């Protein structure tokens, strides 16, 4: 027996390359390529925002952000998000309920139409509102006659933001609620719960993470939207400049610290979004 065991021990731990393994050099090359790419395209930009924002020190950074125009831009950005996110959330819930809980003709067309704003260039999303409410637009004369300003004013900004963030909540909820089916809700209804109670106590707890996720993405886009808002805003400093527009204006005026200080807030928003997103995915992954 010993004679048989001895030679075997010498070959112990002989590793073969598994069928699904790539050769080591391939692995290392691909990992290096990926990491360099990500470093160059994702981490470097973030680092640059921070370094440029603080290029002239804390004080300059603070001054750039507390300057009245910057403050107004931040306020306007928050206001636009504050109006659009709840509206699109309600829409997302209503449309997901109608689409996933009922059968009706034209359902798939409706689902496609909800996604439509995603395939429209942000600039076009702004242009359509100028065509509707601008001085030469569809309602232009009527608006001027009644002294209502939509374009180059806050309502235009809100409308454009509504348009570009329109599908975010709905498209998170629809696939999830479709997959979930309505058995639980039917059970609740059969036990005598009212429709509203069923929604609050049965549906909502099941979709809350996906809902939060949709709201999060909706908010990030609402606060960060540039193209559409840029068309309808008119860039009036202190009045119709959102934070992204303030960043643009400052950058074009070679006010690097102001531009990057603004950018740092938006980048921070992006980081918070990503962190929360990972958290929600983790939460949902655990739950499902």
């Amino acid at each position: 027996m010993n004679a048989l065991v001895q030679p075997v021990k010498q070959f112990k731990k002989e590793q073969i390359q598994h069928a699904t393994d790539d050769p080591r050099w391939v692995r290392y090359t691909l990992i290096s390529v990926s990491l360099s790419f990500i470093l160059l395209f994702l981490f470097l930009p973030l680092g640059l925002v921070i370094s440029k924002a603080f290029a002239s020190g804390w004080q300059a950074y603070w001054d750039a952000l507390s300057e009245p125009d910057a403050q107004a831009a931040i306020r306007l950005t928050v206001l636009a998000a504050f109006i659009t996110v709840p509206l699109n959330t309600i829409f997302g819930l209503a449309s997901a309920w109608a689409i996933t809980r009922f059968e009706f003709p034209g359902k798939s067309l409706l689902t496609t139409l909800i996604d439509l704003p995603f395939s429209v260039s942000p600039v076009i999303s702004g242009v359509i509102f100028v065509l509707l409410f601008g001085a030469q637009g569809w309602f232009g004369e009527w608006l001027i006659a009644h002294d209502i300003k939509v374009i180059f004013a806050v309502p235009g900004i809100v409308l454009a933001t509504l348009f570009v963030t329109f599908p975010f909540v709905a498209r998170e909820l629809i696939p999830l609620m479709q997959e979930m089916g309505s058995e639980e809700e039917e059970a609740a209804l059969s036990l005598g719960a009212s429709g509203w109670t069923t929604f609050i106590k049965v549906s909502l707890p099941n979709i809350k993470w996906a809902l939060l996720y949709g709201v999060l993405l909706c908010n990030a886009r609402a606060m960060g939207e540039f193209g559409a808002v840029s068309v309808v805003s008119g860039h009036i400093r202190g009045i119709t400049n959102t934070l992204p527009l303030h960043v643009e204006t400052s950058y074009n005026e070679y006010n690097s610290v102001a531009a990057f200080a603004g950018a740092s807030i938006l980048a921070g928003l992006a980081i918070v979004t990503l962190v929360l997103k990972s958290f929600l995915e983790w939460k949902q992954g655990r739950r499902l």
Partner: protein
Amino acid sequence: MSILIENISKHFGQFAALDHINLEIPDGELVALLGPSGCGKTTLLRIIAGLESADEGRIFLSGEDKTGHHVSRRGIGFVFQHYALFRHMTVFDNVAFGLRVKDKKERPSETDIAKKVHNLLELVQLDWLHDRFPDQLSGGQRQRIALARALAVEPSVLLLDEPFGALDASVRKDLRQWLRNLHKELHVTSIFVTHDQEEAMEVASQVVVLNKGHIEQQGAPADIYDHPANAFVSKFIGQTNVLNLNEDNVIWLKTAGIAVDDSKGNVAHIRPHDIDVKKADADSDSPVTLKDWQHLGSLIRVELYRPQDNGSGTYLFAEMPNERFKLLQLNRGDRVALHIKHAHWFNS
């Protein structure tokens, strides 16, 4: 081609999936690796194939050491549990794959490939499906295509992982017989993994019983059934009544015709068909009563109850042909006399 497995061990973390396995499989056999789930049988099969590497030990195919060889250089055919057919290729292209990836020097011409593929598809009786995609086939058809694909490269050894595991019961029955016949025709050394003892007994010429990373017994199906090496094998292969040799049981076994010998072990395993049942005579003192019975097709399984002194009781199962049961004219609650023809002895 013969297979020699020498001292193979494999750990997953602390868990020893295989513990110094030694096994020799002669040329041309159809071997079943049989064991409960988690016993290491699939791991062993994958190690033989080269899909997994062992921590130690060596694999010889036809006397040639293949331990360090990549799976693509071992000359084995592997049939996966869920078939792993290439879903983007037709049945024909699936079977032709192994021939088409050969080196230019060895690769047959397309006409030869076509001829060979059609021959194989005829062998598995599915030539009419050659232009279908895997998603359009039934489970049994996929299984046979997977086999044809593995055979195309003329492997010296055929390895099948739970070949009937994913199939409906009726299809499974047919395919078992078909596989056995195919093996008779081709005579390629084959190993298949299964957790179903009936399947192993029916299909294989040799059965290897694995448990917790050990080989418990190796032998012909009849051999293993009639002479189980230990309590695990006895219980795993077929059904058995287990009796601990306490004083009460020893006395009772004697009356049932079995002489108890301490030296043979402290547990008796009795196959249901080794128990003869008849109606107790009026003067018999047999305490055993008939509780119930079930039809198992040609056999009847009877449930027997033996009350014990301490107030509890034990259930025993016996099996007999339908005909005989009818002759006995037994009713529920009847007292019966037992004669035990044979018992296996083990130490627990």
